[in-house]
Structure formats: C-alpha cells, structure tokens
C-alpha cells in the first residue's frame, strides 16, 4: 500500500520569506515522488519530480524539493516566496512496482501575503 501525508492544511508566508510545504510518504519499495500546483479554476500543473539520483530536485517557478529517504519526506521549498505562489499544492507518490496511478495527498493551501 502507498500513501502520502501533507500534515498542514494551510501555510502562511510573507512575501520574500522562504517557504516550505511538507510531505511524507509511505510505499513498500522505492518511490517516485511528485509535486503539483493547482491555481484557482485551473487544472493541476506539474512542478517537479524525484525519480532517482540527486536528492535535491529543482523544478518550475523556482521551486525545489528534497528527497529524504530516512525520514520518508519530500518537502517542497522556495527561497523567496511570491504573492503569485499562493495556490493549492499537492504531493503525490507512486511505488515503482504497483501500477502507474499516482496517490495524492489532500493538498496544502499556500497563502503568501504582501
């Protein structure tokens, strides 16, 4: 079985400050990990993914995420938040051996204030 937890329903950050959106996962084998963002009235957009290799993954819009196998985490980070980053963020996981569908977390709402 595979699952994803996003422990925070909402994260509030001031513009210009660093942001972190947390994600932990549970899979039976090695994971494939993804972050997606959902802006109001728009579909999910792919941000970044971890497949293998370097634990620090860089993605779109200045976002990055760090894969930590010992802590089974894949937190999303950005050094300096923008108001336009305000959106709903979803972490997703896929076990390498159990099908192709993604298992999504419940999402974290990020609010960046001016």
């Amino acid at each position, binding site marked *: 079985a595979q699952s*994803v937890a996003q422990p925070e329903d909402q994260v509030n950050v001031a513009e210009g400050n660093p942001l972190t959106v947390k994600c932990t996962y549970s899979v039976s084998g090695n994971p*494939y990990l*993804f972050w*997606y963002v959902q802006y109001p*009235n*728009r*579909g*999910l*957009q*792919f941000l970044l*993914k971890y*497949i*293998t290799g370097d634990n620090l993954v860089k993605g779109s819009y200045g976002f990055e995420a760090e894969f930590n196998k010992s802590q089974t985490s894949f937190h999303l980070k950005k050094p300096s938040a923008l108001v336009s980053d305000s959106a709903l963020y*979803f972490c*997703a996981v*896929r076990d390498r051996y159990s*099908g*192709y*569908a*993604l*298992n*999504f*977390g*419940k*999402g974290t709402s990020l609010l960046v204030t001016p």
Partner: protein
Amino acid sequence: GAGVSQSPSNKVTEKGKDVELRCDPISGHTALYWYRQRLGQGLEFLIYFQGNSAPDKSGLPSDRFSAERTGESVSTLTIQRTQQEDSAVYLCASSLGMGRQGVYEQYFGPGTRLTVT
C-alpha cells in the same frame, strides 16, 4: 501545443440520471488517467489506460462507473444512476507511456465539475 481538454466544464444532473464526461489527451500521449477530486480532498485514482493494454480499473468506486478509450485518443467516463456522493471534480490526465527512460509526469485537464442534485 494543446493541453488536455475536458468537456463539459460543468455538469448539473438529477439523481438517478446517467452522465458522460469526455477527455481529449495531449496528442502522442499513450497513457490516460481519470481521477476524482471531492471538495477539500486529494485526488482519487479511478482508471488508467495505456495503449492497447487492458485498463487498470482498480480505482472505480462501483459498477456504476465505467470508462472507454478509443485507441490512443478520446476517453469517456460514464456514471450511471448518479448519486449525490458522485458530486466532485473529475480530472483527466495524460502522459507519455512507460519507457526505459523513466517515469513521465502527468498533464492534467481543467476538470469537469459534476453536481448531482
């Protein structure tokens, strides 16, 4: 290029009626997925198509739900005898198929918001 498109964008139906939702994937994407997003929840996997292989239907919540795909193009998700708990946003995604190169990300459509009254 064109992204994943879905129609209709909104659908209001009466309990007990059947509905059909349509998805047009990105051209060249052999894999197609349907998910359901209930209010305040993450996405629930429903069904997956890959090329000419048998679809993975393991996420379909009941036999009222079915989906078809014509070759590597359009897919329709059908919900028969709709219930109020079927109210949700239904999202379609497509991706390049699995390959030796690794795992391909899924590209999502804007969704169909289904309301069952």
